[in-house]
């Protein structure tokens, strides 16, 4: 973990809440932004975006930008139930280009994920730390990736490595 800063999203782009009291936090959703770290954080600050994630991790050095407080509900899953119950972590890069998934980014994101699991009592397993592509489409049974069937983090995301790092920091 190389540190982080708060770049608050526009209040148009998330739902204010008082989690975990208002809504239990039961999982973490891993995203890939299909864009740069800075552009994602900037867009979440745009009132027109209508989307957000709690955290975005930079590829080059693992630096973390926070857009939405954990107590609030970010709009990232494409499934309201999952939004309410999760924390969304975006990662700079593109699903089709594994060069963006650096060691620094895996390491920093895993540290953050482990911290969140510890903080909210989230089990460290692949049932509670999931990819965006595993979020059910609420309107189409059997389809995933939220309503728009997102595919991130994609096949190049190294889940074995990531979960090993999460376990390392969690332990």
């Amino acid at each position, binding site marked *: 973990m190389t540190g982080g800063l708060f770049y608050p999203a526009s209040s148009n782009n998330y739902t204010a809440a008082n989690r975990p009291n208002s809504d239990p936090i039961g999982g973490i959703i891993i995203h890939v932004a299909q*864009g740069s770290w800075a552009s994602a954080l900037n867009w979440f600050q745009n009132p027109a975006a209508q989307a957000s994630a709690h955290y975005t991790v930079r590829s080059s050095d693992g630096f973390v930008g926070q857009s939405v407080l954990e107590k609030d509900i970010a*709009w990232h899953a494409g499934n309201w139930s999952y939004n309410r119950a999760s924390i969304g972590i975006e990662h700079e890069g593109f699903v089709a280009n594994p060069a963006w998934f650096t060691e620094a980014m895996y390491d920093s994101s895993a540290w953050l994920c482990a911290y969140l699991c510890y903080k909210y009592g989230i089990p460290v397993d692949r049932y509670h730390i999931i990819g965006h592509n595993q979020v059910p489409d609420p309107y189409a049974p059997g389809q995933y990736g939220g*309503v728009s069937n997102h595919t991130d983090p994609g096949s190049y995301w190294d889940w074995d490595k990531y979960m090993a790092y999460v376990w390392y920091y969690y332990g």
Partner: protein
Amino acid sequence: MFANLPTLYYQKQETKGEDVRPFVAVISIALLTAVLVSGCGQGSGEERGTGTSENSSIVEETQPQQETTSEDETTQQESSFTAAPEMNGGSDGAADSIREIRFSGHEGYERAVIAFGSEDAPASRVPIWSLSSPTGEGYARIAFPGVDNTSTSDGVFGGSILDNFYVVRAPSGGMFLDIFATGAFQYRVIELSDPGRLVVDYRPASVDLSFPIPARSERTVLFEPREGEAITSPLRVSGYSRNFEASNIVRLRDSSGNVLSQRSVLSNDWAENWGYFEASFEFPAFEGRATLGVGTDSPRDGLFEGVEVPVAYGGG
């Protein structure tokens, strides 16, 4: 929710130079005449006859005026409005960014001024550009292959003929600028230097558009297909968007609202600029009217956000 994930997860695992350019106001009468004859269907009847191309296989190109005068001084030049389908100009490597796009209204026409930058400073000249103004359509597209950044991604002109604009990440590199009109128009282009600016003037043309203007919503612009189009499968779908994680949904519903087909397609940008997308979309035959929706389902609650156009089945 997350308690249900074990089953859900295992079902989904596999998816895991020069400062001043010379004034080159040399547009031959013959070329101009040819352009006006074969032009866009946007010219006035007085200037270009019926508005129907007599030789649509010929792609006409004209050159812009290149001047060093101020933006205001160019208002004295009223001579070179055209409906030419293509035009190009600029200097290689002259700029790498769009710094600003301005609007001004004038008697008889309206003006968009594109100001360029080079290495974070105003550019002295205009970069390489090529304009296309497809026949009978209500927009012009200006490609800037050497431009990679923009400080403005879209905006509303709010004029009587100049409507709005989008700056889009081009699929082949660089960026393009779409300038939408409220109806049929003629245009002229003037290059200004020191600093480098491209002036694009629109004036209304007294003909009807041949095609509906592309459907636009807050974060999605759909170029293909157009409203009311008879479509065949596979259908080419193209446009640009700023939808979450560059993910766009293409969904065809029949007149009862049943989904006939849907697919997702990624655009080449979303968070920094408008991102271009295109896809081949297959669908079954249907009767009557259907509705094609292109956009995204809200990452918040799943409600559709985008454009919806009525379409008819074109056989095939």
